[in-house]
């Protein structure tokens, strides 16, 4: 018998930090898609950020561990639809990223899906000094979800959470 309310389970999940970007939670990241309470159990739907994200397994284990503490053994399902997008992050979440030193993703626009589309949204603002005198160093960063930039204002490299 599940005695917790859905909102309480969401709160518990919201206390699990992203293993790679601990400044935000897995709920804020948009990985937790749904929580359903059944008679005897709880079902959690999660979706990967990138198809090959190695952190997904760790997130699943943390969800399991967290809910076990309140006596629940969740059944966790990986879903792909709708595909994860950085647009699910709230402004508040993006601000947390910026304060942590990662430039937040811009708003996604769908006409840019084509690989040759000009998706240049202008330089990304430096999360440290806010300068827009920055340049892209590499499209790929330390994790699948980030790109590497350099700020000419404060002469520091920084990462950006890619718009996806």
């Amino acid at each position, binding site marked *: 018998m599940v005695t917790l309310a859905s909102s309480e389970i969401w709160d518990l999940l919201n206390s699990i930090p992203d293993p790679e970007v601990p400044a935000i939670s897995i709920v804020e990241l948009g990985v937790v898609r749904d929580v359903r309470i059944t008679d005897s159990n709880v079902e959690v739907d999660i979706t*990967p950020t*990138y*198809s*090959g*994200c*190695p952190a997904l397994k760790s997130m699943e284990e943390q969800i399991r561990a967290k809910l076990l503490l309140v006596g629940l053994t969740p059944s966790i399902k990986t*879903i*792909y*639809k*709708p*595909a*994860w997008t950085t647009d699910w992050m709230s402004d508040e979440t993006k601000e947390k990223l910026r304060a942590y030193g990662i430039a937040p993703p811009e708003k996604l626009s769908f006409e840019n*899906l*084509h*690989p*040759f589309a000009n998706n240049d949204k202008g330089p990304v603002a430096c999360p440290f000094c806010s300068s827009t005198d920055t340049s892209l*160093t*590499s*499209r*790929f*960063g*330390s994790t*699948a979800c980030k790109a*590497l930039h350099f700020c000419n204002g404060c002469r520091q490299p920084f990462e950006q959470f*890619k718009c*996806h």
Partner: protein
Amino acid sequence: MMTDLQKALIDFCLRIADNSLIHAQRISEWTGHGPILEEDIAMSNVALDLIGQSRGFYTYAAQIDGDGKTEDFYAFRRGEREFRNKLMVEQPDNKDFGFTMMKLFLNGCFDYLMFRDLMKSTDETISGLAAKSIKEVTYHVRHAGDWVVRLGDGTEESHQRIQNSLNELWPYTNELFEQDSVDALLISNGIAFDKEKFRDEWTKMVYEIFAKATLSVPENNTYSPTGGLKGIHSEHLGYLLAEMQYLPRTYPDAVW
């Protein structure tokens, strides 16, 4: 008892998954050997995306099969005659960065157009996996396309080397569009789409980049290697699998 449609759907998923996995395995050979650190990281990330895509399609195939199979069974317990990837992706890169980028570009443009269609599939899982994969593939094509232009329109040596890569890989592109009765059955059910219909668009896409890169497509090409749909491969695949499958074959009880 499985229906013909279910069998076809398993084959269809394995073809996509095998192609992404074998491509990823080749790209991941660069990990620790990239020409510069950023590209080393980039290639590892691209390989990771492709492995992730293959996992999604393997898992769905295993689910339809329902015989206790898992994604790992498909990746690690099948021989080369059972793999359904296209011959292009198994070709060795021989530490030629331009060759890797050209292959990623040619196959990536194809995958982009294929997934764009599959997003409209009547099969919910297929359309979901396609919507997920296309975002990553788009990013890969953008990256590889930039390198094709940069190397093609670069120095005399970089131009010649990437032109050589194009000459070598171009004959393999014909196989990308091959279809058979598996496709026909799925097309008639709205699950898959006719690849011939986007062939012109694919050609236009790659020519657009080749023009910028000052590269020319080999003319009067009559050589067109084929066999992936039937599991008939070049000799390179066996060596690749021997390395990739070594651990699970040697220690069958090993767990992650």
